[in-house]
């Protein structure tokens, strides 16, 4: 790229500096930074997983392999209860969120109506507004209406922040759907209802599953919304983890963390890898 050695030797000093910057800054720095950044991102997670099997309570000294902490995680009643709350909330809010997202996405892609662009922008608001402000606003709203905080308020808050993601995924898929298939069905005499259930819905099923899983993961991991919208007796898992962390880190948390890492990695890699690349391209 910089020419042969003899050529370089003839170059003036300023030019040499420039070539050095080019070769090193762009050529070498970007792979090095990438490598370091990936280490920075993954070493803590690997350490967490490895030390969840450590027999001693220490997080440094390795004193043998054990599954004991996992046993403790499964025996902890508070954790089990929190897990149950989180699973219920994640399931219901992902279901609602996917349904709303699908309806909205299909309307935006397939139907003409005034204010379409404005609406699709407005729908993205929960993605860019600070989550804590939306959470506070919902808390104030529920208190003002005398609604007891609990499953309902938490589900509403989770639906609110997962709907934009579900909409975007279904929208990307619906836009790339071959419209002629639906037209063919119409030509063959199918009414709108039949077209939807026999043609559109089956074709959209994979992205709908992706949207559901993404929404469920986001809800399961959500911490900020739940901090403000959960009630007495409906503490979800992240809030439970937070209060455990405030008391001090224990190997039990490492084990729980390792389990959650496993679950999240599974969802991302196995089920969504393909669809997420589609989503990212948009």
């Amino acid at each position, binding site marked *: 790229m910089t020419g042969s050695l003899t050529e370089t030797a003839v170059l003036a000093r300023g030019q040499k500096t420039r070539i050095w910057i080019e070769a090193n800054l762009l050529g070498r720095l970007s792979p090095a930074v990438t490598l370091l950044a990936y280490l920075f991102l993954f070493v803590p*997670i690997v350490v967490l997983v490895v030390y969840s099997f450590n027999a001693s309570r220490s997080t440094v000294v390795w004193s043998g392999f054990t599954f004991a902490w996992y046993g403790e995680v499964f025996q902890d009643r508070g954790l089990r209860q929190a897990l149950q709350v989180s699973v219920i909330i994640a399931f219901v809010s992902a279901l609602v969120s996917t349904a709303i997202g699908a309806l909205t996405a299909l309307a935006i892609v397939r139907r003409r109506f005034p204010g379409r662009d404005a609406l699709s922008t407005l729908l993205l608001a929960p993605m860019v507004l600070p989550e804590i402000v939306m959470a506070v606003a919902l808390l104030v709203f529920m208190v003002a209406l005398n609604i007891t905080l609990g499953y309902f308020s938490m589900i509403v808050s989770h639906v609110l922040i997962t709907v934009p993601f579900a909409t975007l995924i279904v929208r990307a898929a619906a836009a790339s759907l071959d419209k002629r298939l639906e037209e063919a069905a119409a030509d063959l005499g199918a009414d709108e209802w039949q077209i939807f259930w026999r043609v559109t819905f089956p074709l959209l099923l994979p992205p709908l599953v992706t949207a559901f899983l993404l929404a469920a993961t986001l809800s399961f991991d959500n911490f900020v919304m739940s901090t403000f919208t959960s009630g007495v007796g409906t503490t979800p898992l992240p809030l439970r983890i937070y209060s455990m962390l405030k008391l001090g880190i224990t190997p039990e948390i490492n084990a729980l963390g390792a389990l959650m890492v496993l679950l999240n990695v599974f969802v991302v890699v196995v089920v969504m890898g393909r669809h997420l690349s589609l989503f990212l391209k948009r």
Partner: protein
Amino acid sequence: MAGAMQNRRGLIVTLLMLAPATVLIAVFLIVPMLIVLGYSFAGRDAYGGVVPGFTLDSYRELFQPLYVPIFWNSVKLAFWNTVLCVLTAYPIAYFIAFRAGRFAPVLLILMLIPFWIDFLIRISAWVVLMGRNGMINSVLTATVLDEPARMLGTYGAVLVGLVYAFLPSAVFPIYAALQPIDRALLEAGRDLGAGPLQNFRRVTLPLSMPGVMAACLFVFVPSMGVFAIPVLLGGGKSIIIGNLIVQLFLDFRNMPLGSAVSVVLLAFSSLGILLYMRALRRVELART
């Protein structure tokens, strides 16, 4: 006649399809935000209850020496977090887009994984690493230090936690801007005698500016509202707007003051979004 009926039916179907999302946004986002705005101007009784009325007391209270440092600290922390994230994310995105070749999808998926791993679990990993007897300290005391360094509870620890949490959000928008750049443009630049640096400065960087700005927005705005990182890694000492909101609402039950802080945070972020959109328009204008 039948056509008009068809039309009206179509309109009704469209409205029904849009109704759930519209109701959701209107009832559970816009109305609650308006209530917060209203509360921020309301008075307060001795027990923290909201007294209807119009007063600027809450906003005035925010200018007290108790609160000003918190705002300043938040802006500073968010600023450094943004700078560090974008400066690190750019070479990563550049590498994935231009150099990684067939490894690009793998690197992208890897970048997604920390994004989806539970936020608190990821932060807890740093609590383990940075503790007094943690892994970093045991490496340091074995090599260069005589005594374990204090990391947890410092400003630096909070910053590391923030960068750790927000780095992926900076990589994706920059990558999305770099990836579609026409490679022919770079070749044209080279044919016209531009070196890689010139090519980068004149072609790649300007074309990726919208991505860089989006990255700034995605990092700066949410990092002011974070409250778990300052508590877990900063020992609750260098607190930011997010912590203040949590304290005012959940500990002190001071809704009017909490609402005022939320409105200020919302104003900050709206300003960020506005600046982003204006800058984006300028970039697009410059390009045409």
